[in-house]
């Protein structure tokens, strides 16, 4: 799938405030967010700051989406657990899955193995994106964020986006 199609799916699901920290797997997505005036994108200095910005935007009436690499999950775990989960402040987390199936640079392998379990531990719902389930998963995420009002993650391994 191309970056533009991916963003169109997110936008048509209702996500209208984007922030995050880049990963090469979503490099084109973020470049497009920066370029296209129809998107609101705030580059964040760190993943927990992105989650904080998204929370503020939600309080102000937006439907936020945070993009990050899975290395950033640890960085923002406290924000997710002590802000989003207790106040019921939802956001969609698009989390690139570096170290998926143990194939990646050494710094990605530990989190690559643990990232889904980490979310399970704190009871955050997630799905793994595949080339075939992107549209369906984005719709699912919107259901969770609007009904349960908690964050939800879509893990994005290599090969789903072009």
């Amino acid at each position, binding site marked *: 799938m191309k970056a533009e199609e991916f963003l169109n799916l997110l936008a048509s699901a209702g996500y209208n405030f984007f922030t995050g920290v880049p990963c090469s797997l979503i490099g084109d997505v973020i470049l497009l967010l920066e370029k296209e005036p129809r998107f609101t994108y705030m580059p964040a200095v760190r993943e*927990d700051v992105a989650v904080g910005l998204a929370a503020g935007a939600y*309080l102000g009436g937006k439907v936020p989406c945070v993009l990050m690499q899975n290395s950033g999950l640890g960085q923002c775990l406290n924000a997710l657990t002590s802000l989003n989960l207790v*106040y019921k402040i939802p956001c969609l987390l698009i989390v690139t899955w570096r170290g998926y199936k143990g194939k990646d640079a050494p710094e990605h392998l530990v989190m690559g193995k643990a990232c889904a379990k980490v979310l399970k531990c704190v009871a955050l719902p997630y799905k793994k994106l595949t080339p075939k389930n992107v549209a369906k998963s984005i719709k699912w995420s919107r259901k969770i964020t609007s009904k349960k009002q908690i964050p939800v993650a879509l893990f994005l391994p290599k090969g789903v986006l072009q």
Partner: protein
Amino acid sequence: MKTTAVLKCVMETLRDEFVVAANGRISRDAFTLKDRSQNFYMIGSMGLASSIALGLAVTQPQCKVVILDGDGNVLMNLGGLPQIGELLPPNIIHIVLDNETYGSTGNQATISRKIYLEKIAQASGYLLSEKVTEEGAFKHALEKFLDAQGPSFLLVKVEAEEEPKGLPRVSHSPIFIRDRFMEAIKNIGICRMNISFGS
């Protein structure tokens, strides 16, 4: 100056500004002094008051947003300052009560005794940044900052002191705080819309 006296003055001076209050003593004090629907009391997520406020300020540019922060919080998320400076939202007033300690955990030292947070804010792009150490200057600065175009940063040096005995926790549930806050934002939107349609 004493933390409670500074916060009392802030809470009494505020009009319809929205407040994001940092976790710990600052939220508890603000809650006890003047609970209002426009207050968002952060109970966890230390460091993120400035980021939450920024997300709100850019989304609702018609709302003035006051951040009640502490030195420990600011130091924990220093990146939050240039994040604000880069976007220059005119509706952010960042007030930092600096007691040079982690007050809510028993006054262990932070590093703000030797670090000039107001200069970091200035270098981060805040349009206005001042440090005040006594009451007269603080009151004067507060009035000025509430009217001035932001983002502005007011560092208020306060005494490190024992937390007042019996200072209650925020008794509202987090979800109540969220709903009430969001409702207040909606109402200000409706109110402003009526004014603009009427004129």
